[in-house]
């Protein structure tokens, strides 16, 4: 038998021990803990959703979407005002926050000299702003509305202002990420042809960053659609019986209605609230799905 063969057999004996160190007690306990954590998170979430669906199931009908909320006839209460209100809020929130957010991000990323202390200060505080509790933005919106001279704040404009302030930092941060991801060479190529920085930003950088900006904006909006706290502060009604008709129209929003109905004692109203939660969840998931779709469809690799 050659030396090589002997050595090979020794190595085989040493390697083929019939057990794996990956299956040791410590490893298994650790793996178990990881599994439990995952299980816990998913199960709690599932239980919540399932119980809400079961509770709200009797109310999944057309009236849920087309009727107004009524305490007189709670069995046919609907969330027409809330759904329309939330959609209007989203529209005006986007109109307020998106241009401001993109412009601010472009300034910070493309024009500002990041070595200046002032710009550094702004950057640090943007990160902090994203973590400010949403209720604070509600208070801010009330103050701004008062400054603008509106005596009623529970209107589309007031709610949209609060939500826009809330998601502005998110939009700025995600837009900056998207703009930063556009390669330097793209800008250099444009500038070397005699384009100005402004032309380069407008014609090259921004169009290339749009998928990322859209994704960030939609995720911001899907956060805003579920917010109740700032809307409570702004003074949105928990129930109205007419459709929104303009920027100054009084409205309610789905989270506001859910909030007020879940505290009602009558079973029919609580049932309706559960159904409304599902409606809200579907809207949020729909927005997130749209964001994922845009990200995957338009994702570019350089």
């Amino acid at each position, binding site marked *: 038998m050659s030396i090589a063969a002997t050595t090979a057999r020794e190595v085989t004996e040493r390697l083929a021990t019939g057990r794996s160190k990956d299956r040791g007690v410590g490893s298994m306990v650790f793996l178990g803990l990881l599994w439990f954590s995952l299980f816990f998170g998913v199960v709690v979430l599932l239980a919540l959703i399932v119980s809400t669906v079961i509770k709200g199931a009797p109310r999944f009908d057309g009236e849920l979407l087309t009727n107004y909320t009524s305490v007189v006839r709670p069995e046919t209460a609907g969330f027409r005002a809330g759904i329309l209100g939330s959609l209007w809020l989203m529209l005006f929130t986007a109109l307020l926050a998106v241009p401001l957010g993109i412009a601010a991000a472009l300034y910070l990323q493309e024009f500002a000299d990041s070595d200046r202390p002032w710009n550094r200060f702004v950057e640090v505080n943007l990160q902090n702003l994203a973590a400010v509790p949403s209720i604070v933005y509600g208070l801010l919106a009330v103050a701004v509305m008062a400054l603008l001279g509106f005596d009623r704040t529970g209107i589309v404009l007031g709610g949209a202002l609060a939500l826009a302030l809330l998601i502005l930092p998110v939009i700025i941060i995600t837009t900056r990420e998207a703009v930063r991801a556009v390669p330097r060479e*793209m800008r250099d*190529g444009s*500038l*070397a*042809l*005699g*384009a100005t920085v402004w032309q380069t930003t407008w014609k090259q950088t921004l169009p290339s960053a749009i998928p990322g900006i859209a994704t960030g904006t939609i995720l911001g909006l899907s956060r805003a659609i579920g917010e109740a706290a700032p809307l409570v502060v702004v003074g949105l009604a928990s129930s109205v019986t007419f459709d929104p008709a303009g920027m100054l129209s009084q409205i309610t929003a789905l989270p506001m209605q859910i909030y007020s109905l879940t505290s009602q004692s009558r079973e029919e109203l609580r049932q309706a609230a559960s159904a409304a939660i599902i409606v809200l969840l579907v809207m949020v998931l729909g927005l997130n799905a749209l964001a994922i779709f845009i990200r995957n469809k338009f994702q570019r690799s350089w």
Partner: protein
Amino acid sequence: MKETSDMATPPATATTGATPVTNAHLGSLADVSSGAERHLPVVPESPVMEARDLNVFYGGFHAVHDVNLPYGRNEITAMIGPSGCGKSTVLRCLNRMNDLVTSARVEGQVLYHDQDIYAKGVDPIAVRTHIGMVFQKPNPFPKSIYDNIAYGPRVTGMKVDTMDDLVEEALRGAALWDEVKDKLKQSAYGLSGGQQQRLCIARTIATKPDVILMDEPCSALDPIATARVEDLMMTLRDDYTIIVVTHNMQQAARVSDRTAFFTARPDETTGNRTGLLVEFDLTTKIFSNPSDKRTEDYISGRFG
């Protein structure tokens, strides 16, 4: 650098610059087909551009020290040297691309037709329309081939009779027309790397510059695409002044009329490496009989 011996000897057979790409040529990449047979004065007689006492700083870091370098009309000037020797920095000074680096500071003069482009009141945007640039990595815009070419004339507000003619002229000028004439509306990203780089050259000549700067234009290309770009450079020499930075010494030997060799010298106190010009001469001279020891060490592969 196994072919250094080939480079150091003057070419036996040299193709002329205007020769279109042929398969025969592709098989003979080692051929030195530079402007060797061109009879050029020892010093450029009417330099289009000239760097005078050029110093570049990035913050407190002294990147380039006292470069004096003339660039002759309708010549290809190659700038070679080891990494960090400041050759790309010098190149980016020639059309004020360094302005975009906020910490960069330029001292000295860069003359373009005897006008200092760093003088007060000179618009860097206007400078770049006269002095175009092609980059290391092909960087077409995510637009159609047509729009890539039309972009420069459009943003600079160039007076154009018909854009279609200008696009065709630029693409023909970059020897790309026959390959793309049927797909002008398709995305430039569908082209191969070499085609993309020639598109970038076409894009640059569409703005009708005087000088074309090339920053390692072939370093991301395969040898065949490289050969085509080099052929193109020699054709373009008839109409433009070309300044090229390259890591590839064979390329410098093949295409350039004059070669400037840079090296980096560590600062005695800080250890920061400052780039400086060692030797500037006709390419044939640099590669056959350099007068500086450091140049000789570099081109013979002993250093760098």
